[in-house]
């Protein structure tokens, strides 16, 4: 099972297509960002992330 990341929203998933963006996900990603509380996190605000979860920093 390869972990993939959506090329648009950078969300990390196992599916071949991002369920939210409906775009193919990529196995070529690096860097990990776990957002637990998007309301309070300054990092989430900077990257315009509104949903908690795991994100990649760079996706190709």
């Amino acid at each position, binding site marked *: 099972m390869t972990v993939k990341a959506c090329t648009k929203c950078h969300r990390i998933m196992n599916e071949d297509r991002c369920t939210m963006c409906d775009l193919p996900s990529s196995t*070529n990603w*690096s*860097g*990990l*960002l*776990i*957002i*637990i*509380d998007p309301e*309070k*996190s*300054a*990092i*989430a*605000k*900077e*990257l315009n992330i509104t949903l908690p979860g*795991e994100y990649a*920093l*760079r996706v*190709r």
Partner: protein
Amino acid sequence: MEDSDNLIYAIRTLVGQEKNVAQMIARNVKNSGIEVNSILVPETLRGYILVESSSKLDMQNPALKVPNIRGAVEGMITFEEIKTFLKPEPILASIQKGSIVELISGPFKGEKAKVVRIDESREEVVLELIEAAVPIPVTVKGDQIRIIQKEAD
């Protein structure tokens, strides 16, 4: 606003275990009630993870008792300092025409090559192997090379 309340701590981990540690902390934090807002694992920073919290992190908290942690770094990091990790510059930005690079994966792994052309839109570079008797152009992805010498002599 709230941004000033957010403190960023660096936690030392075993090299190679950064992602596992981050995922374990994330799982523990949800049930323990300590205020961790996000965890950042920059790929360029080996052996460390950055934890964003609105209160002071207590390393004695059972939620932070995770294997492979090697302790916390004293002091805090400002948000400005971690901005560079959030928006990584494209790999090809540091590579110029004429640079000497080493291939780090693929059939020519370990070979040194000279950059002939850069295709920024596709993140590809055209290389010419230095040690080859006949110069053959090889096209590789930007993440398959490591820069050795920035400019040509």
